[in-house]
């Protein structure tokens, strides 16, 4: 499998020494959706932005279609950006309220010099119908739309330049349940129809399961487990993944035995030595403080960064 987007040993530290992304390897193939899940402050949004260089990585290597783009000059990078799109969480904050929908959809094409004015004008209704809106929505302003419709506009905008890679950063977290389903359906239909590579970032495990055949779990700046959705949900091996799954509240589901994590997430500017999860981990042992675990394959397609990986309760 050749990766469309690949990051190796990516690192990003913010002011105050916050190590948001601290040594992450990640790869997304052409046409593949990778889910990225974790709690606030784990670095998932930073990693997503680093992958399209909206945030510059400070260390590591980033490749796109096999080309090293880590230090690609701005001008050359701009040429590549038409191949990358991003949909943000808040459709109220990400659309300029003073632009009409037609202008919002045409802008990325103007920036990238796609076609002439007539071409761009002709493309607007196509983009609108692609996301389930009507051609006569083109002359309206964002405030005239509901949250779900605004997110559709944001998706159309991200797809205006026909990117190969789409980052979706919590695209449905600000939406109501009934609207969330509409937007998830739209995203997965577009992903398949257009053959997009997609990074689907969310704190919502069920939404990630729905969208992504392969899922990575982040904790405090690092990927702690990566697996197919079948493995991740049926046989999670990292104690953090297990705790996260046990905490998810499923409507009408039987109440699972909850793994209550002790203490609070440590500060990302001063993460614990060795394994970052050890301060809250029910399996922590002396080795965990001394030696940082690396992502290692424990089963086919399942990689875990833990010295003591394994199922929750050993089979009898």
């Amino acid at each position, binding site marked *: 499998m050749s990766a469309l987007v690949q990051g190796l040993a990516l690192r990003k530290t913010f002011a105050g020494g916050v190590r948001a992304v601290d040594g992450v390897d990640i790869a997304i193939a052409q046409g593949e959706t990778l889910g990225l899940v974790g*709690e*606030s402050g784990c670095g998932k949004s930073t990693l997503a932005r680093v992958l399209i260089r909206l945030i510059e990585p400070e260390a590591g290597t980033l490749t796109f279609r096999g080309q090293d783009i880590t230090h690609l000059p701005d001008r050359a990078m701009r040429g590549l950006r038409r191949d990358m799109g991003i949909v943000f969480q808040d459709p109220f904050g990400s659309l300029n309220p003073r632009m009409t929908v037609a202008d919002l959809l045409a802008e990325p094409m103007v920036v990238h010099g796609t076609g002439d004015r007539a071409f761009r004008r002709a493309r607007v209704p196509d983009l609108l119908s692609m996301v389930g809106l009507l051609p006569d929505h083109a002359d309206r302003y964002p405030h005239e739309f*509901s949250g*779900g*419709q605004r997110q559709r506009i944001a998706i159309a905008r991200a797809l205006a330049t026909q990117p190969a890679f789409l980052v979706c950063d919590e695209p449905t977290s600000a939406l*109501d*349940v*009934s*609207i*969330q*389903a*509409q937007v*998830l*359906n739209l995203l*997965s*239909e577009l992903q398949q129809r257009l053959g997009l590579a997609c990074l689907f970032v969310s*704190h*919502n*495990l*069920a*939404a990630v*399961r*729905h969208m992504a055949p392969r899922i990575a779990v982040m904790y405090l700046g690092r990927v702690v487990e990566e697996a197919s*959705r079948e493995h991740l*949900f049926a046989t999670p091996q990292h104690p953090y993944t297990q*705790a*996260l*799954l*046990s*905490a*998810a*509240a*499923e*409507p*009408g*589901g039987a*109440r699972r035995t*909850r793994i*209550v*994590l002790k*203490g*609070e*997430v440590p500060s990302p500017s001063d993460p614990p030595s060795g394994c970052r999860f050890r301060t809250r981990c029910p399996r922590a042992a002396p080795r965990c403080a001394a030696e940082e675990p690396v992502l290692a394959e424990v089963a086919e397609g399942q990689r875990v960064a833990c010295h003591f990986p394994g199922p929750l309760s050993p089979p009898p």
Partner: protein
Amino acid sequence: MSLISVRDLSVAFGGTRVLEDVSFDIAEGEVLGVVGESGSGKSMTALAIMGLLPMGGTAAGRIDFEGRDVLALPEREMQRLRGARMAMIFQEPMASLNPVLTVGEQIAEVLRRHRGLDRRAAHAEAIALLKLVEIAAAERRVDEYPHQLSGGMRQRAMIAIALACRPRLLIADEPTTALDATVQAGILDLLRGLRRELGMAVLLITHDLGVVSDICERVVVMYAGRVAETGPAAAIFDGPAHPYTRALLAAIPRLEGPIGALPAIDGVVPAPADFPSGCRFAPRCAHARPACDAAPPPLRALPSGTAAACIRAEEIA
């Protein structure tokens, strides 16, 4: 006997009725979930009970709490009730806590006002309350400011303030929505424990059916300012009778089971000015008939164990 009994509660702003004919009861020590999407009126219901409606809002109907109609109480009496007999916590603890006062001072404020404790006693009681909500190192945390606490600890501090006078009813409006899943789980466990320990009733307002399923005994499902369905949580989840409840449950991505296109609900919740005159869900309902537009359907008890406001509930079951 019910601790609180809400009867035909309506709330209007000018000529616009945002809430209409809402009725439910909460027994002593019971956890009732009020669930709905944005604009369903769930938060407005809570604010009406607390006598905290936004400017211009007027409530009609009856809200009997411990034998008194709180809608008819003078503001002075209401102030005595609020904080002492009923208390409320909100979604965003950082916005509800005063950033320039320590956590202890904010708890003490309630204790001194409602229970007349002196400074020293209030401080000691504040520490006891922080321990009750399971904040570690309470003796130290009591003198810290909100910004020094994590999100989960802030919500625990809010709960401590709300519990300061041992209210009989705790209204929790999206108490875990701003929190991470693992932190949310801890807060729900805490609420469950407190309710058992103190015998306090909880009105939990949420958009999250997972939270409802986790902690609530009975559920009120609201849609566009009216009650769509109500019943024991188990019956609501096992045999939802209202097409809205059914559609809502079906639209949620799950942790188990098949993966495919989600059965989404078309359209959006109407704005209060555009509420249909008949069934408010009819324009989005797959089972709607012309008769649904005639009049608002009344809540009817159904064999499944819930009561639903749908004239076709039996046919589509």
